[in-house]
């Protein structure tokens, strides 16, 4: 459905997207994963014919984005990062306007407007001014706008950004629901979002394609090892961090112990387990048996940076370290 070959976007001084190639099959949901500024939005804008690529080609449903932009645009529904709404319009008025722009008219238009209102759960705000809607409703109106002409391909730029957790779940369910009818590309920097909604993942960083992979493989890589933060305090007086570290190192299944912070009375360690081992229980036992206090023991998720490190570690470790810290819940 979507075929991208050596797609590049250069600006005056920077290369925003650098020779990206991937393919998306019909009916798939693909997650576009990367930290902010990785080039996700630029790539999507090139796919939607908003920006012309500097080099390379992209075809949507067999039409080239440079050669036949009108044909591509007819087949694409696009939700930019901020929903493109006119605050002075009413919901239905807006959807009618977008529908007409996309080539619908008459009874067919009315039918689609009713359908998308139903589908995106915005029936109760049909006659409200868009400027007065909450962020969640605006996002859903944005989504309704994207699917109004029943496009083959849906491109969603961070569809859940800025929503509250309940709205995030609703939006995700909606997107999953839509998957049967449309091919969907959605961008995000949140890993669980990809896990929950997507089948395929494309990871980019600094404009370069880092990996395209199925979600299952990525999950295995991300979840293979457990990462635990442990805070230990001395029960009677000062605590020697080096001894604690040595002790923790000896717990079965632990592959690495890093001391994050230490003072006279307590120390914080970050502990990585070997693949497939769960060490929290053993760690707790080890600390308590040694006569120390266990103040805190919590698993931390892998950050996106760490996944990038895993995926690209051998290639350019020093460069990757500079990547922005994106916490994955």
């Amino acid at each position, binding site marked *: 459905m979507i075929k991208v070959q050596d797609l590049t976007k250069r600006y005056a001084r920077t290369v925003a997207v650098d020779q990206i190639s991937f393919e998306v099959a019909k009916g798939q949901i693909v997650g576009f994963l990367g930290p902010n500024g990785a080039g996700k939005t630029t790539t999507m*804008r090139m796919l*939607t*014919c*908003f*920006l*012309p690529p500097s080099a390379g080609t992209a075809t949507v449903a067999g039409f080239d984005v440079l050669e036949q932009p*009108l*044909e591509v*645009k*007819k087949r*694409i529904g*696009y939700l*930019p*990062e*901020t929903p*493109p*709404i*006119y*605050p*002075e*319009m009413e919901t239905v*008025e807006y959807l009618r*306007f*977008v529908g*007409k*722009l*996309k*080539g619908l008219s008459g009874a067919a238009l009315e039918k689609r407007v009713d359908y998308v209102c139903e589908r995106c759960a915005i029936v109760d705000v049909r006659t409200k001014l868009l400027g007065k809607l909450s962020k969640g409703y605006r996002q859903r109106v944005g989504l309704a*706008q994207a699917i109004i002409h029943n496009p083959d391909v849906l491109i969603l730029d961070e569809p859940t950004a800025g929503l509250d957790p309940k709205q995030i779940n609703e939006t995700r369910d909606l997107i999953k629901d839509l998957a049967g009818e449309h091919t969907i590309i959605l961008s995000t920097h949140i890993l669980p979002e990809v896990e929950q909604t997507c089948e395929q993942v494309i990871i980019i960083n600094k404009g370069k394609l880092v990996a395209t992979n199925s979600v299952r493989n990525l999950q295995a890589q991300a979840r293979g090892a457990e990462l635990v933060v442990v805070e230990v305090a001395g029960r009677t007086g000062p605590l020697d961090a080096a001894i604690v570290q040595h002790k923790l190192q000896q717990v079965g299944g632990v592959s690495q112990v890093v001391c994050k912070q230490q003072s006279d009375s307590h120390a914080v360690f970050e502990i990585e387990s070997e693949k497939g081992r769960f060490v929290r229980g053993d760690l707790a036992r080890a600390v308590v048996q040694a006569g120390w206090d266990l103040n805190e023991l919590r698993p931390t998720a892998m950050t996106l940076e760490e996944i990038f490190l895993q995926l690209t570690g051998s290639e350019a470790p020093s460069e990757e370290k500079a990547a922005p810290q994106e916490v994955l819940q």
Partner: protein
Amino acid sequence: MRNAWVICRKELGSYFASPVAYILLTIFGLIFGYFFWTAVRFFVFEGIEMQMRGQAYPMNINEQIIRPLLSNVSVIGLFFIPMITMRLFAEEKRTGTIELLATSPVRDLEIIVGKWLAALIMYSCLLLFTALNFAFLFRYGNPDWKPLLIGYLGLLLQAGGLLAIGTFISTLTKNQIIAGAATFGVCILLWVVGWMGEFEMSTWARAFSYLSVVTHFESFARGVLDSKDAIFYAAVIFLGLFFTARSMESLRWRS
């Protein structure tokens, strides 16, 4: 061109959904009403005076009321045009809705023509106020309606050109104020360059004064449809829209 009409309707909707249209209409109505009142009063006083002196010079409503008033409108319009065009593209660029337009199966030209047409219709609504005033002249006098029609055609052509320039300037920035101020500057410049020809006779001064959008209106105000002036306005409209189209294109390559 169906898409252009869709966009035009939407633009008109946002003019009239916000206070913009009503404020422009009110202010324009007040200003023109004042001019109209002054012109009519002067005309009536002159008539009474002549009756009292017992001498009768020919008096003509078209020449003495309508013509100067139309010329006034062509200048007042210069102040209103920036306020009509400044938001056209600047607002869409600021809120990101330009992405919706640019990723819809619509040609750039259709977007531009739609917006320009909406601006022109908005301006025509302002002119409706003048028509309302002129209607009184038809009720109590018998002016010739043909020169008036030509005058309106001239006003629309002049505004069409300036609105096209304003539309172009609006594509250059995200900031409505900047777009408005720049358009205002251009409008005023295109007015005052006409003064140059009054005291300078050299070729360059004549060339500059030829650019004045207001002097080209004089023939229309007299009720004369001069092809030279009509072509000048048509050329300004074409150039303005052409630059807008090029600017839209470069927007994609730059942003």
